[in-house]
């Protein structure tokens, strides 16, 4: 049985909005920027309470990143908000030079990440953003799993000095973590202990991993489920300790299998403890229009896909 219960589905972007509103009250240095997507990013509450600390940039994401970098110079902590594609690929060089290499304290907050934004289709469904951001030296990359954790992560990154990429999504998904759980950057969380196989999941796929583990339990497979909300810095220890016990691993992410969490884990393993691994991720294709659940099923990102990969990796375990 899934040890967690859904407290009521909510979108993770609303967790961001709630966290930002909270920061508005507690941290006078926090400022927010948006590129014509206030509603989608759930920034309304912050803006209403602190209009003078909000900057509407218009549809000019490159300029937004530069302005954010400049604001840090006056001691501000800028939170930029737009869709994940326009938060990363659109502005990679601007983030690279004006933020990452310049060591600027900018929080790049990205909604509508992954396939699950749904009907808008492939031009909006970035499946490479984790890879893009993880390659930048000094960048912290976070992909929380539900509303509560996104809210906690939003609040936590304000206190972290340095650039952060915070990724969240559009659809309503189960909210199951505790609303008062502290968020520790870079510390993976074991959500369910197990001895047969390790499932390392991030973002929306954490809940799917828990559901898969519950189903696997009924097949007498004891899966360990780790919520790896921080992809960089990666919690190598928690992964290595777990596979030392289980001997095999499945990674699960709403991302291309190239360049993302899965490859980071593969690298850690091959460098430390070569271990059979299977990948729950998109298979080097663009996305398409559809409902979130249709897409997760078609592209193999749901609990069924996780179970399949667990069976596959168990067969490979010696």
């Amino acid at each position, binding site marked *: 049985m899934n040890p967690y219960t859904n407290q009521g589905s909510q979108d993770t972007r609303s967790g961001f909005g709630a966290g930002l509103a909270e920061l508005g009250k507690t941290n006078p240095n926090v400022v927010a920027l948006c590129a*014509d997507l206030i509603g989608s990013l759930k920034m309304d509450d912050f803006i209403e309470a602190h209009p003078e600390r909000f900057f509407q940039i218009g*549809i000019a994401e490159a300029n937004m990143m530069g302005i954010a970098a400049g604001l840090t110079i006056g001691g501000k902590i800028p939170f930029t908000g737009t869709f994940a594609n326009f938060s990363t690929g*659109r502005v990679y060089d601007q983030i690279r030079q004006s933020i990452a290499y310049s060591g600027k304290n900018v929080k790049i907050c990205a909604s509508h990440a992954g396939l699950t934004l*749904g009907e808008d*289709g*492939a*031009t*909006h469904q970035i499946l490479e953003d984790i890879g893009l951001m993880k390659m930048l030296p000094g960048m912290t990359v976070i992909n929380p799993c539900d509303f509560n954790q996104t809210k906690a992560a939003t609040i936590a990154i304000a206190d972290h000095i340095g650039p952060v990429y915070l990724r969240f999504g559009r659809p309503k998904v189960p909210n199951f973590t505790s609303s008062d759980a502290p968020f520790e950057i870079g510390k993976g969380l074991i959500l369910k202990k197990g001895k047969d196989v390790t499932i390392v999941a991030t973002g929306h796929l954490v809940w799917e991993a828990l559901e898969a583990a519950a189903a696997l339990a009924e097949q007498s497979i004891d899966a360990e489920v780790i919520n790896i909300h921080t992809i960089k810095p990666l919690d190598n220890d928690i992964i290595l300790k777990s596979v030392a016990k289980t001997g095999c691993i499945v990674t699960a992410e709403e991302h291309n299998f190239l360049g993302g969490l899965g490859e980071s884990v593969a690298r850690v393993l091959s460098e430390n403890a070569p271990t059979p691994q299977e990948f729950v991720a998109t298979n080097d294709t663009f996305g398409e*229009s559809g409902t979130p659940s249709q897409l997760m099923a078609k592209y193999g990102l749901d609990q069924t896909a996780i179970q399949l990969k667990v069976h596959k990796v168990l067969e490979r375990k010696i």
Partner: protein
Amino acid sequence: MEKSFEDYPSNQLGWVIFVQSINKMADLQFLTDTVQQVRRDILRMVHKVNSGHPGGSLGCAEFFVTLFNEVMERKDGFSMDGKEEDLFFLSNGHISPVFYATLARAGYFEVSELNTFRLLDSRLQGHPTTHEGLPGVRVASGSLGQGLSVAVGAALAKKLNNDPKLIYVLMGDGELQEGQNWEAMMFAAAKKVDNLIATVDLNGKQIDGTTEEVLSLGDVKQKFEAFGWTTFTLKEGNHIPALLTQLQEAKAACGKGKPVAILMQTEMGNGVDFMMHTHAWHGKAPNDEQLEAALAQNPETLGDY
């Protein structure tokens, strides 16, 4: 060419009968009927999947229908190369409903396929794409600001191929906030890309409000002219005869060493009273009752899909 239509009210029903560029009343009737049917198509498409962008789509219905049916010199069928025919690129890809409906009504694919808009496995993706092989689409759009560059490239290819036909491209006004447009603007003027007509959907609105509220574009005409373009302002962007005259005038301005632009003032949500004079319907679908009300204002003409 004198802009004789600006004197007339832009009342959709009060058209002037004698139009230089349309000689037959039948053409006018066909265009107005098509626009009305396209409006229905747009509304029904976005309603069915409860997503998509009706506002900008409705605002550009007259433009699309006029361009595809009376202005562009097109060949039968569809080839990606598009040699020896006029080509159109949609940069503001979110108004795909009007693009798809216009293409279907112009015969690029069965109108029944409009039924698949934004569904899984459809060729009618949320934003236009070549990826699924939909006839009429030559480049993907959706991430704003890229279409003008692509259009410039296609125009250069036509020149290399000694192909005298023209390139058309549509951009949103909010979209002009993207810097890549100004790169393309500067290039087209510097390199005399004069087989290109760029049209801007100047509806004064974008997602978060009016362009004025979000990020004022200032004087757009002045900017285009400063960037070296022959620039027309079309006040009646929802008036088919005015569109026709303007498009013919723009065509005549091609081949003179300068790229050509039309700043087309439109009404977002045009043709559906409660969708007009607001940015609320930029990306929101009507519910059942709203759909009914909207369709009642636009009775069937060519037959629903």
